[in-house]
C-alpha cells in the first residue's frame, strides 16, 4: 500500500487538500503528486529528519506538569496545508477590515462610547467585561491603534465556508512557530519549493519591527524597541526570544526596566540606564504595573502605566485592548464593522448565542448536546464544553454554570473543522485543523501570508492547542497565476 493512500474520507468533513472524490484540489496537486512519488519508507525517513531538525534547532514550547516545567520539542507534521492565493487575498482583506474596526471600537470604548450610546452594543456587555480597564479611559495611543498584534483563529466548516472563531487581542502567540515551520520544511523538503510559487512568510519580523517602531513617541529618531517577557518559565518563552533576536531588539524582563522620576522607562545595561521607547509586552495587563494592577506582580514594572499615559513609551498591545477580546463582544463584531466602517463583513462570524439574552439562554440550555459552550474570557481552549462529546454530568455542570453567570457564557453550533492529511505512523490520515493568521496595525496594516496551522493529532479530536495534544503544519499560500 502506498504512503499517500488515504482511508476513505469521512463524508461529513471538508478536506483542505482533497476533493470529495479523493482527487487533489488544484493548489495541492503538485504536493500530492510529490507525496505519491515517495515510498512509505522514504516518507518516514523525512519525518524523522524533521524531528531531528526540530530538536537541534531547539524549537520548543514549555508545559507545566506536576509543578515542574518541561521544555518539549514542538510537535510538527510535515504535510502542509495549502491555500490558493486568490482565496487568501480575500481573507487578508477581511482580516484587515476586522482589526481596523476592532481598534476603532476599543478607542471609542475608552473615550465617548458612541457605539453604546447609539445602542449598537448594549451597555451591560461593557459593564461586566473583565478586560475593561478603567485606568485606560482617555488614553490616546498613536493612530488610535490599541491592538497592534492580533492573532485571529479561522476555521472552515463542512460546507467550505471560512469563519472567524475568535480574535486574540491580548498576547497572541504562535507566529514564531509559523516561521520555524517553514524553515524546517525548506531544510527537509527543498525539492517541493522548486516547481511552484509558494509565497514566502519570513517578512513578518521586519513588518513587526516597522509596526512597533511606528508607535514610538513622535520626537524620537531612533526608537529603542524591547520585548518584555515574563521569563523562561513562560510557555511561549521560545517565541519571545525568537522575535527579539529576529528584530534585533533587547529581550527584557520586568526586573531589567525601571521608570525614573521623569516618567520615562529605562533599561539597566552594563553602561548604565538606557531609554526605552516601545515595549512589545508578552505579559498580561494584570501583571504590567504593580502600582496600578496586581500589586503582587513581580513580572511588571512599577510606574509603567504612568509613563504610558504620559506618552513617553508605547506599549503593544496597549493596556486595555483585551476589552474587545471577549467572546460576548465577539458576537457583535459584524455590527461593529458595519457601525464604524459602513461595510459588510468580508469574513463571517460563527453564529453565536449569548446566554445573557433570555431567548438565547433558553435555546442553549435545551440544546447543550449539540453546542459548544465557551466562557467569555478564557483562552487556550480551557473551560469549554463540547456538547456532543461531553457526558450528561458535564452538561449538567455547565447548565448550572450558565444559570449562575449567564454573561460569562456563549454557545456556538459544533463545527466540523476541516481536515488535512496528516502523517500517522507511516500512513496519512485526515486530522482536523484551524488557522491562525497574524494581523498588525500601527501606521499601516499587515497580514501574514497564511498563518499558523494547528492540527489536532488525536483521531477525531477538535482541540488543536499545543498544550492539549495539538501539533502544527506549514501553511502554503500558492500563487497559481491566472487560475
Amino acid at each position, binding site marked *: 500500500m502506498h504512503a499517500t493512500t488515504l482511508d476513505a474520507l469521512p463524508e461529513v468533513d471538508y478536506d483542505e487538500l482533497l476533493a470529495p472524490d479523493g482527487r487533489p484540489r488544484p493548489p495541492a496537486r503538485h504536493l500530492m503528486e510529490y507525496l505519491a512519488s515517495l515510498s512509505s519508507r522514504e516518507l518516514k525517513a523525512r519525518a524523522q529528519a524533521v524531528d531531528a531538525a526540530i*530538536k537541534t534547532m*531547539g524549537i520548543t514550547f514549555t508545559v507545566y506538569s506536576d509543578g515542574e516545567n518541561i521544555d518539549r520539542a514542538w510537535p510538527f507534521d510535515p504535510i502542509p496545508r495549502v491555500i490558493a492565493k486568490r482565496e487568501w487575498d480575500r481573507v487578508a482583506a477581511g482580516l484587515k477590515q476586522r482589526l481596523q474596526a476592532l481598534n476603532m471600537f476599543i478607542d471609542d470604548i475608552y473615550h465617548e462610547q458612541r457605539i453604546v450610546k447609539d445602542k449598537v452594543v448594549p451597555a451591560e456587555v461593557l459593564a461586566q467585561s473583565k478586560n475593561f480597564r478603567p485606568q485606560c479611559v482617555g488614553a490616546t495611543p498613536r493612530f488610535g491603534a490599541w491592538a497592534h498584534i492580533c492573532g485571529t483563529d479561522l476555521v472552515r466548516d463542512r460546507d467550505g465556508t471560512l469563519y472567524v472563531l475568535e480574535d486574540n487581542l491580548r498576547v497572541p502567540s504562535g507566529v514564531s512557530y509559523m516561521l520555524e515551520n517553514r524553515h524546517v520544511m525548506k531544510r527537509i523538503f527543498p525539492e517541493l519549493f522548486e516547481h511552484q510559487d509558494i509565497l514566502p512568510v519570513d517578512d513578518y519580523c521586519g513588518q513587526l519591527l516597522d509596526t512597533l517602531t511606528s508607535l514610538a513617541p513622535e520626537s524620537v529618531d531612533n526608537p529603542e524597541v524591547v520585548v518584555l517577557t515574563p521569563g523562561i518559565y513562560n510557555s511561549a518563552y521560545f517565541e519571545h*526570544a525568537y522575535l*527579539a533576536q529576529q528584530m534585533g531588539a533587547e529581550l527584557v524582563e520586568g526586573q*531589567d526596566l525601571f521608570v525614573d522620576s521623569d516618567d520615562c522607562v529605562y533599561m*539597566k*545595561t*552594563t553602561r548604565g540606564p538606557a531609554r526605552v521607547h516601545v515595549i512589545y509586552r508578552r505579559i498580561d495587563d494584570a501583571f504590567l504595573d504593580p502600582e496600578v494592577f496586581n500589586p503582587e506582580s513581580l513580572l511588571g514594572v512599577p510606574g509603567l502605566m504612568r509613563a504610558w499615559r504620559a506618552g513617553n513609551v508605547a506599549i503593544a498591545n496597549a493596556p486595555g485592548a483585551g476589552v474587545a477580546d471577549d467572546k460576548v463582544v465577539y458576537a457583535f463584531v459584524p455590527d461593529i464593522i458595519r457601525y464604524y466602517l459602513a461595510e459588510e463583513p468580508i469574513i463571517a462570524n460563527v453564529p453565536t448565542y449569548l446566554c445573557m439574552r433570555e431567548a438565547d439562554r433558553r435555546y442553549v440550555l435545551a440544546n447543550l448536546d449539540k453546542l459548544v459552550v465557551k466562557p467569555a474570557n478564557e483562552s487556550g481552549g480551557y473551560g469549554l464544553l463540547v456538547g456532543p462529546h461531553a457526558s450528561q454530568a458535564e452538561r449538567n455542570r455547565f447548565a448550572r454554570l450558565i444559570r449562575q453567570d449567564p454573561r460569562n457564557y456563549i454557545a456556538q453550533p459544533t463545527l466540523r473543522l476541516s481536515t488535512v492529511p496528516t502523517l500517522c505512523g507511516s500512513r496519512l490520515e485526515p486530522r482536523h485543523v484551524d488557522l491562525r493568521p497574524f494581523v498588525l496595525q500601527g501606521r499601516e496594516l499587515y497580514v501574514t501570508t497564511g498563518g499558523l496551522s494547528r492540527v489536532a493529532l488525536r483521531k477525531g479530536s477538535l482541540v488543536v492547542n499545543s498544550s492539549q495534544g495539538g501539533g502544527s503544519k506549514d501553511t502554503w499560500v500558492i500563487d497559481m497565476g491566472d487560475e
Partner: protein
Amino acid sequence: MLSRVAENVYWMARYLERAEDTARLVIASTHLLLDLPRYVPLSWGSMVEILGVSMPPELGEAPDERGVMRFLITDTNHPSSLVSVVRMAREDARVSRDILPADAWEAINGLHLYVKDNAAQAQGRAKRLEFLREVVLRCQQINGVIDGTVSRGELYRFLMLGQQLERADMTTRIVDVRAARLLPGDSELLRPYIGVVWMSVLKSLSGYEMYRHQVQSRISGPDVVRFLLKDPCFPRAVERCLRRLAEMLEDLPNGERALECVGLARQRVRSARLEPLDLAVTHQLIDDLQRDFCNVHAAIADACFRYGGPLPQRQALVESA
C-alpha cells in the same frame, strides 16, 4: 547590553569551559592511572580534589573508579558534574538566545542533548573515553563558532571574561593538586614514574606538544610548572589567560577595579620563583592566585551585573581552595 544578559553569557562561558576542562582532566587522569602500578598513591579521588568540590561521604575513604566517575560525570545532584554544568550552560544559552548567533545556540543545545543522551552509557572505560572526547570536540566546536561569528563587542567580551577566568582557575588547580603529589620527598614510590605523571599534567591541559616545542629537554617538574603558570603564548597558561583578561577589561565600563586585580595576579605570577620547586611556596602562590581570581570575578560582577541591587545567588564554581 542588559546587565542580566551580560551575567548570563559570562556564566555560560564559564560553564562551557568547566565542562571541557573536566572532560580533558578525566581523560588524561584515566590514561595516567592505567600507566601506574597499583601501589602508587595516586587516587581517583584526586580528580574530585582538583575540581575543588568536597567529596561526598557516600563515596567512602578511598573512592573507586565507578563512584568517582558517576560523581564527576553523571550525577545530576552534584552541581559541578559534567551533566550539570552542561545543563546550566545550556540554560544560560537559552535565556540569551536572542543575542547568540543561531549556530552557537544549536551547537550548545547539541552538546546538551548529546551529554544528556549518552552520559549514562559511558560506564566502561572505552565508552567513557569516547564520550569525553566527543564532549571536548563539541566544546571546541562551540568556541570555533563563537570565534568565527560573534562580533568583537560586549557579548564577546563577557564570553571571554568567563572563559579565561575559568581556564586560569582550572590550570592552577591542576598544578596545585598534582604538584602536591609529585614534589621531591613526597613519595619514593612515585619516583620512577615522575616523568609519566608530569606528562599527564600537561596532557590534561592539552599542553604536551606545545611544551615539547617550547622546552626542548627532558620533562621536569619545575619546567612544567613554569610553563603552565608563566608562558606568555600557551592558551592555557595562567599568564596568557590573565593577559587576555586584561585586554577584555580595558573597554569594560567601570572595569578599573577588575583590571587592578588582574594586574596584581600577573605581578604575582611574574615574580614567583619556582626553582627549586617547593611545595609550600607553590601552594601559597596558588592560594593567592585563586583569591585574586575571586576578586576579579567580584569586581566584574560589581561593575556590570549588579546594577545597584544584590546579585541573584549563583552556584559559585570558585570555592576557596
